[in-house]
């Protein structure tokens, strides 16, 4: 095979590969529509969660919201939210350890950890019955 033929074949392979890469984006079918929908759902959710003022550094956020369009912008009315912070859990564990050293009941401290409720923690910590 002469040199010019080789170059021609290389060019053809290159062009075919480029065509395959770009053609996938314009193929018909519902796949592209689903991908677009998935992106939109992700953006909507990030927008809704991003509006929350008490987002933790690390954790899980569960929300339920009514969404309405106003002048092209979605406005969220969050009517239910549960925020579980990973760092908060770690802090509580340390407290538990100190409680354990003091001879407190193990099961109770685990319950406090799961509930993540500050008032509960304070109540149980100051409970005169424990003393």
């Amino acid at each position: 095979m002469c040199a010019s033929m080789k170059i021609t074949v290389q060019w053809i392979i290159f062009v075919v590969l480029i065509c395959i890469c770009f053609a996938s984006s314009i193929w018909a079918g519902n796949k592209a529509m689903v991908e677009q929908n998935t992106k939109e759902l992700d953006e909507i959710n990030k927008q809704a969660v991003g509006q929350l003022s008490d987002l933790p550094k690390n954790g899980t956020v569960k929300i339920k919201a009514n969404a309405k369009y106003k002048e092209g912008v979605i406005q969220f009315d969050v009517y239910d939210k549960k925020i579980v912070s990973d760092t908060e859990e770690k802090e509580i564990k340390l407290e538990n350890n100190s409680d354990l050293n003091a001879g407190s009941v193990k099961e109770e401290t685990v319950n406090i950890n799961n509930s993540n409720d500050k008032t509960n923690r304070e109540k149980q910590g100051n409970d005169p019955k424990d003393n």
Partner: protein
Amino acid sequence: MIPKIIKYFIVAAVCMGVMAHAGWSGNKRIMTIRAAKVMAERAIVESIYGLKLKATEEVKDMIPTSFEGSTETKTMAKIKGISYDDIVYDQEKDIAKVTASVALDTITNIDGKVMNLKNKVYKRVGFATSTPEMAGPIKALRSAELDAYKQLIKQIVGFTLESQTKVENYMLKSDLVKTKVLATLYLAEVTDYGWDKQNDAFVKMSLKVSEISEILGETIVDGGKVIEVEGQGAQEDDFSAVKKAEKKQ
């Protein structure tokens, strides 16, 4: 040698076969046109009387193959005086297109509200076929129509969002997102429809809020607005193929 009677019998059978075929094609044409008329009638009912739409969408970990979406519509009404202005039948493709129109003074809509339509002419187009192989473009158009209805409801009534999101170093990472739409819609008008080069269908719909306000005799917030949406529908289900391939892996 074949006896004469048998020869006559064969000739008669062939003739009957040919004639019967001609009769079938005529029946097919009528059936297809009739179906298109029903489709156009449904579109008119959906436009004027209204429809109830329920739609859900769910995606996990932002992976498109986990996407689950469904849209259901319901409507039922008696409307008198529908006329068919334009009936076109493509014999080669066995597809019929019918334009139906109606002009009513008043009507009680799906929400039980009396609407003063003042004899305005409402027009809608219906397509149908009796050949299953030719149903692809028509199905795509219907799904584009439903998508447009859903988008209109999302814009007007809104939707509910349920999600569970992981936050890592203040970065949001969607885990599970669900949206739900449940509402009634009426007086939506189709402004344009068709199929693009990839054979995917599109339906453009609009809703004039000021007109609805006038028809219902109620003041609506954002009354001067015209809401326009474009629904999409695909002929080819390449998404299911990808989903199956991923499950096998």
